[in-house]
């Protein structure tokens, strides 16, 4: 499996492990009406973000140790093509979701729901980028 495909899977796992529990808690509505600054919510967000970085950093070190030559290789034309397609997919998801979050939700939702919807949008767009990357390597493996 190419090093960059492993990184894509690792990134997906890190996103899932960190942000699925976060959004489950947020969806319960526990933080919806807290006054700003919503420290409990911000602390939770900081915690899951640190967890994600730890999984990514630790996983990257393990993967690099297992295949140091693959990790050193610069992205070639196939890597660039897969990456470009993945970024384009993520961009469309991000654009569509941001129209919803920034253009519609301000008329119907509270502040923290909008904030979390924006974070959710970023996470989903990033997940799409990594998923399309992983699938790209699978289909062209």
């Amino acid at each position, binding site marked *: 499996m190419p090093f960059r495909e492993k990184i894509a899977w690792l990134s997906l796992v890190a996103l899932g492990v960190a942000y699925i529990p976060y959004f489950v808690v947020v969806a319960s509505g526990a933080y919806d009406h807290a006054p700003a600054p919503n420290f409990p919510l911000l602390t939770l967000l900081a915690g899951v973000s640190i967890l994600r970085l730890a999984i990514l950093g630790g996983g990257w070190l393990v993967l690099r140790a297992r295949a140091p030559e693959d990790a050193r290789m610069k992205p070639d*034309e196939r890597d660039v093509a897969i990456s470009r397609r993945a970024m384009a997919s993520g961009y469309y998801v991000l654009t569509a979701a941001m129209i919803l979050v920034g253009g519609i939700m301000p008329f119907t939702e509270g502040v923290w729901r909008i904030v979390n919807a924006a974070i959710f949008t970023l996470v989903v767009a990033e997940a799409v980028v990594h998923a399309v990357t992983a699938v790209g390597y699978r*289909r062209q493996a």
Partner: protein
Amino acid sequence: MSAPMLRGALSNRIRALRFANGEMSQGDLGQRIGVTRQTIAAIEAGKYSPSLEAAFRIAHVFGVSLGEVFQWDATGG
């Protein structure tokens, strides 16, 4: 009315050429043309079509013409 797009499939003889050239490994070939071993494997399997430049580089490594490495089968696809 426009003509229909030609259908076909790209095939290649990279595997045979590698073996004819001292059983060159995918990694060695990849290193010489600036792509990863996995990309060479994908090209060999017909799952990735290389850029024209990479195709010419592959042909150059084997000392043959582009047509001896890559073939276009107009009836496939």
